[in-house]
Structures are given as C-alpha cells and as structure tokens.
C-alpha cells in the first residue's frame, strides 16, 4: 500500500512540474523559426539590425489547425526573403505568438508585440474577436496590420489607419451565401450563430440579405461559442421543415452542430462561411454527413491555379502537410509587408524604417498580385479586389470544390 501511495504522490508532483513547464511554453514565441535567420547573421561576425514580422494567431486550441496554417504561410515568406534582407543589411525574423482564440491573451500579446521595437508589421490573425481587442493597441503604436482572414466588416469601420486586410468581408460573404441559397430555389431557412464577433457578424449580414430576398427565416438562434450540445436546436430545425441551415461560426463547433443535425436525420443544406473551411470540419462532422455543405469563401481555388500548385508544393516541402485555406493569403500579405518594408528602407536611404513609414507604404498598395490574391487597399484598409466564392464539401474531402464565383 505504502509504495503505491508514494507513487501516486510522485506522479502528481511530476505532472504539476510538467504542467508548469507546458504552461510557460504556451505563450512564448516560437523561437525555433527565428533561429535559422539568427544563426546566419551571427556567422557574419556582426549583429545586423533586426526587422521582425510578427504573427498572432491561434496556435493551440480547437481551431489551431487554421491558425498554424496561417503562421506557416508567413513563415514561408520570411524564409524565402531572409537572404534578400541580409543583402540590404537587415536580419529578417519571424516572431509568432499564440492568441489561443482568446481576446484577453490577444491583448496581452499585442502589448508585448508593440514593445518589441524590431516588429514592423503584424500579420496573421484569424479570429475577428481577438483582432478587435488588439487593434487599439496596434493603432496606438502605429504598427501596421495586414490581416489574411478576419472578415468581420466592423474591423474596417473603426477608422483605424493601421488596419488592412487582403480577405473579403462578411458583409459580402453573408449576403453571397443568402443569394446562393435563394438561387438554389430554397426559401425556408434556419439561422444559428455563434455569439462571437465573427459568427454573429456573418449571421447578421446573412439575415439582412435573406430578409431582403423575402426568404422565410423559421428560426434565428445564438449559441455560446463553447456550446457543444445542439440536440434540441437540431430537433427544432428538423421540426420546422427548414430546407437550409445557415451557421455562423468556426469549424470545431460547426462540425459538432452538423454531426448532431445529421443524427436527427436532417437532410437539407448546411451553409456557412470560411469559418468551416478546414479539414477539421470534415473530421468532426464525419465525412458521410457533409454532402450537402456549402459555404461562402473569400479563399480562391489554390490547387486549380498553376501558380497555386507550385506554391502548395513549396508549402508541403517546408511543413510536411497540405496547406489549409488561408495559408496562401497569409503568404501574400507577408509579401506585401516585405515589399513595403523594402521600399521604406530604400526611401530611408538604407536605414531601418519606422512603423509609420511602413504603414504609409502598405496603405498605398494597389494592383498587387500575389499567388492567389489581387490586392488594392481602400482608405479603410479593405481589399477592393477581393472576390467571394461558393464552395462545397460534396466530395467529402478537403479542400472543398469551388462551384461559383460571386461578383
């Protein structure tokens, strides 16, 4: 008995230690990615001034796959340009932080980002709620932000000069989804929205268009972003006879919702936005249930584009897995950031530019052509060249099939 009990104590103590170590790793920068660049600069004998691109995205948590994918896109761009920047006399590094999809963590990280004087641009960002919380801090420090995936329209309406995004916005994604459903001849719909900024914003925009088109909204419910029980809502949906369900939210929750809907023998359309554009959605909802899933997407068709295929192969070689939906947009936004920094360096006579200088140049981006995106920023920071697409998981595999482009 005594031996077993001291074993129990040891195990408990060991696990406490492990947790303490694990906890402190959660928030720190992934310095692993910074070391190749750092190593090359120290071998040249003198320390070059450092320029950092920072990303803040969900590296842990239910939606981590999307966040890691975005970080990888930026990382790829940084790695490709390290030599170029060395020749300009700068040590280019990536600083990546984990916001855990949580606004409070995002704010704390934002403060540490702006305090690091080498950080000239902030990229990444998948969670609108987190970016909403962090933007005031970035704006105050004049730190330019280029977002690849935060689609809440409110982000560009706050008058922030440092905010830019290459993706489209929900105020086009939502209505496009409604238009699509309407064009398919469906009028009876049920809306379920996660109550975070993205889900709710998307569903609101969808609702406005649905009302405009005269669709019959049989129910409009909100759920807590952490909610996992959709049994009763599914019962209501099936009983209401709705032919299409619109879900505003992310894939971890959306997948569970669809799974439970399918268990209740729902056979109508399931429509959402880019939040479900991830392989995790298929895994959670189970592949046999996604035959009727459609979503509006700001993401183009990577693998049917020749440049996209080349880029995807590069991504695969670097990270050992296929790119997700937003990696390529993160890559394109990093390219914008890097070319703007380069121009700022030359405008500055070869010296390290200030954040304001970089921001001014980024804001003037016009007609930029990345791997998949065309970017022209308007004065609010939105990309006027962004397009929306309708995609489907009909084939039961990821990535989704693109069926339509909405103008």
């Amino acid at each position, binding site marked *: 008995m005594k031996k077993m009990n001291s074993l*129990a104590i040891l195990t408990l103590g060991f696990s406490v230690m492990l947790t303490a170590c694990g906890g402190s790793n959660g928030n720190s920068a992934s310095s692993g990615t910074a070391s190749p660049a750092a190593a090359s600069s120290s071998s040249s004998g003198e320390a070059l001034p450092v320029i950092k691109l920072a990303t803040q995205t969900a590296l842990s948590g239910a939606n981590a796959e999307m966040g890691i994918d975005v970080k990888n896109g930026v990382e790829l761009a940084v790695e490709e340009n390290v030599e170029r920047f060395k020749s300009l006399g700068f040590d280019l590094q990536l600083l990546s932080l984990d916001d855990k999809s949580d606004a409070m963590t995002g704010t704390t990280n934002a403060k540490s980002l702006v305090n690091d004087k080498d950080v000239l641009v902030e990229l990444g960002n998948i969670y609108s709620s987190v970016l909403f919380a962090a933007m005031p801090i970035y704006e105050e420090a004049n730190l330019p932000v280029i977002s690849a995936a935060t689609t809440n329209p409110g982000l560009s309406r706050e008058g922030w000069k440092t905010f830019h995004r290459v993706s489209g916005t929900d105020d086009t994604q939502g209505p496009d989804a409604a238009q699509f459903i309407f064009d398919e001849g469906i009028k009876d719909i049920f809306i379920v929205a996660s109550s975070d900024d993205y889900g709710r914003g998307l569903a609101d925009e969808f609702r406005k268009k649905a009302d405009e088109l005269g669709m019959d909204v049989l129910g409009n*419910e909100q759920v807590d972003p952490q909610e996992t029980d959709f049994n*009763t809502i599914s019962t209501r949906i099936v009983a209401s006879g709705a032919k299409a369900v619109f879900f505003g939210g992310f894939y971890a929750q959306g997948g569970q919702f669809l799974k439970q809907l399918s268990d209740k023998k729902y056979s109508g359309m399931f429509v959402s936005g880019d939040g479900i554009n991830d392989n995790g959605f298929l895994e959670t909802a189970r592949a046999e249930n996604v035959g009727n899933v459609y979503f509006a997407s700001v993401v183009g068709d990577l693998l049917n584009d020749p440049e996209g295929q080349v880029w995807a192969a590069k991504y695969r070689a670097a990270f050992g897995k296929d790119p997700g939906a937003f990696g390529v947009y993160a890559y394109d936004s990093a390219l914008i950031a890097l070319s703007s920094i380069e121009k700022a360096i030359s405008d500055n006579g070869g010296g390290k530019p200030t954040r304001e200088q970089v921001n001014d140049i980024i804001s003037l981006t016009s007609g930029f052509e990345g791997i998949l995106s065309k970017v022209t920023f308007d004065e609010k920071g939105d990309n006027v060249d962004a397009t929306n697409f309708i995609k489907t998981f009909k084939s039961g595999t990821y990535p989704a099939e693109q069926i339509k482009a909405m103008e």
Partner: protein
Amino acid sequence: MSGLSELSILPQVLIDGLTLGFIYAVVAVGYTMVYGILKLVNFAHGEIFMIGAFAGTEVLLALQRFGIVDGVNPYVSLLIAILIASLLSGFIGVGIEYAAYRPIRGVPTLILFITAIGLSFILQDLVRMVVGLAKGTYLVNGVELFSGSFAIGGSAVITEKAIVIIAATLIIMIGMELFVKKSKWGIAIRAVSQDPSTASLMRININKVIALTFFVGSAIGGATGVLYAQYYSTITPYIGFLLGMKALTAAILGGIGNIRGAMLGGVLLGLLESLGTAYIGPLTGGAIGAEYKDVFAFSVLILVLLFKPAGLLGKAVKEKV
C-alpha cells in the same frame, strides 16, 4: 412558429433532456458521495469524468486501428472501453485523495476547496498538453459505435446512442443504490458519512472507506465520460468543467450528500436545459434566445433552493451536541 409544431417536438425534447439528465445524474452522484463522507466538494470530479471520456475514446480508437471495433458487437467494444476507463478514473480518484486531500484533512474546508479547484485546472491542462502534443489541436473525434435510430410516434426519433446511455446510466444508478443500501462496504460508507468517530469505534477503517468512496465515485464518473463521448462524438479537455459545475449544482439541488437526490437533481437539470433550448426562443418571440438556456435552468434551481435550502430530498441535519 405554430403552436402545433412546438408541441410536436416535446417528446423528442424530453428524450434529449432525459439522456443529458442521466449523464448529469451519475456525475452528480460522484460529487454527492464524496461530499457526504468528507464534507468536501471534489471540484476535480468533472475532470475525472473528462479523463474517463478521453481514456474510453483512446481505447476505442486503438481497438478500431486493430480492426476489433468492426469485428465484434459494438456493445463489447463499449464494455471494454467503459471497464478500462472506469478503472483508470477510479485509480486516479484514489490517487488524488491520497496525494492531495488526505495530507490536509482537518484543515478548514476552504483550503480543501481551493486545492480541489487547483487540481481541476492541473488535470485540464495536463490532458490538453498530452493530447496537444500528439495531435496539434486538443479536439478529439471519437469512434461512433451506435448509429441506429428508431422512430417513436409523431416526429420523435430516439437514437440507439440515447438508449444505450439511458440504459447504462440506469444500470449504474441502480447498482449504486443496491451497493449503498445492501452491501457491507456500502453500509460502511453511509456510516462514515453519518458519524465518522462512532464508525471508527465500530472498527470501520475510515481511510479504506474514504478511498473506496473516491474509487467508486470516480469510476462511475469515468464510465459516464465514455458514454458522453459516445453521445457527442467529439471531446475536449474542457468538457468536464462546465458539466461538473452543472452536476454539482444538480447534486446540491437534490440535497447534497443524498444519492437519490443527486440523481433526481441531475435528471431535472437535463430536462430544464432541453426544455429551455426548445421553448425560450419561440415563447419570447425571439427576444431571448436559446443561448440563455443555462440562465433559465439555473434560475429554476435557485428558485427551488430559495424555498427548500436543503435541496429537494435533503434533510436539515441536526447537530448532535
């Protein structure tokens, strides 16, 4: 929405509420047993439930990899998963009692509470770290053993899953009743809950009884975790936290320390949540949505406690001087 369609979903809503309620009920029993014997709320119990869910899921995933799941009757696979998960949860429960609670037995209850809360967080993050290391994300999609369903009158559909869960939890609860009322150890547990010093005078080994209480309570919690994983198909390290809170509240509602009360409280809570989700929206014309179901359920609970502070089946304990 017409009143007719609202009523027509009632059987289904009740079934869903019962299934959820039975899950709450068994977890609530775990809380109430430990409270009865130690006057301590084991906040980590929700996490033991969660560990049971993960253990069961991993067992099933492993069985699936070896092709066993498709080969044998799903009930056999479920039984294997439940056995392994409950044993593991039971031992973890005993380990927690021995390592964290026993050394500080006798200190003010507040300190015990805080220890328990701390344990709860440690376990959540421990599981999250382990799962995260293996998978990158902490969400785990389990193996679906039961996918059938039966229509029962009107538009109500009862899934095979729900039947299995209700049956299994009923078996567990009846087993608990019998154990506590009829078996030697069960009577010992009740004796220690009632009066530890007198019980020890009757040559009952208090420490053994306490360890057994933790084992049994944790084991059934872990078993319920496996059932939960079957019901929702997807689990995270955080499922234990909110569910644990709710089960604890259910136990209090039923009269903390009273096992039947815990079962009653759990079932009631499950039904309230389900009814709330179904009817709050339509009844308030959309002003208050389904996301307030927890507010609704807890408000009813508070109301009950206002009128019956000792809980539905609880009795005010007379202090023997």
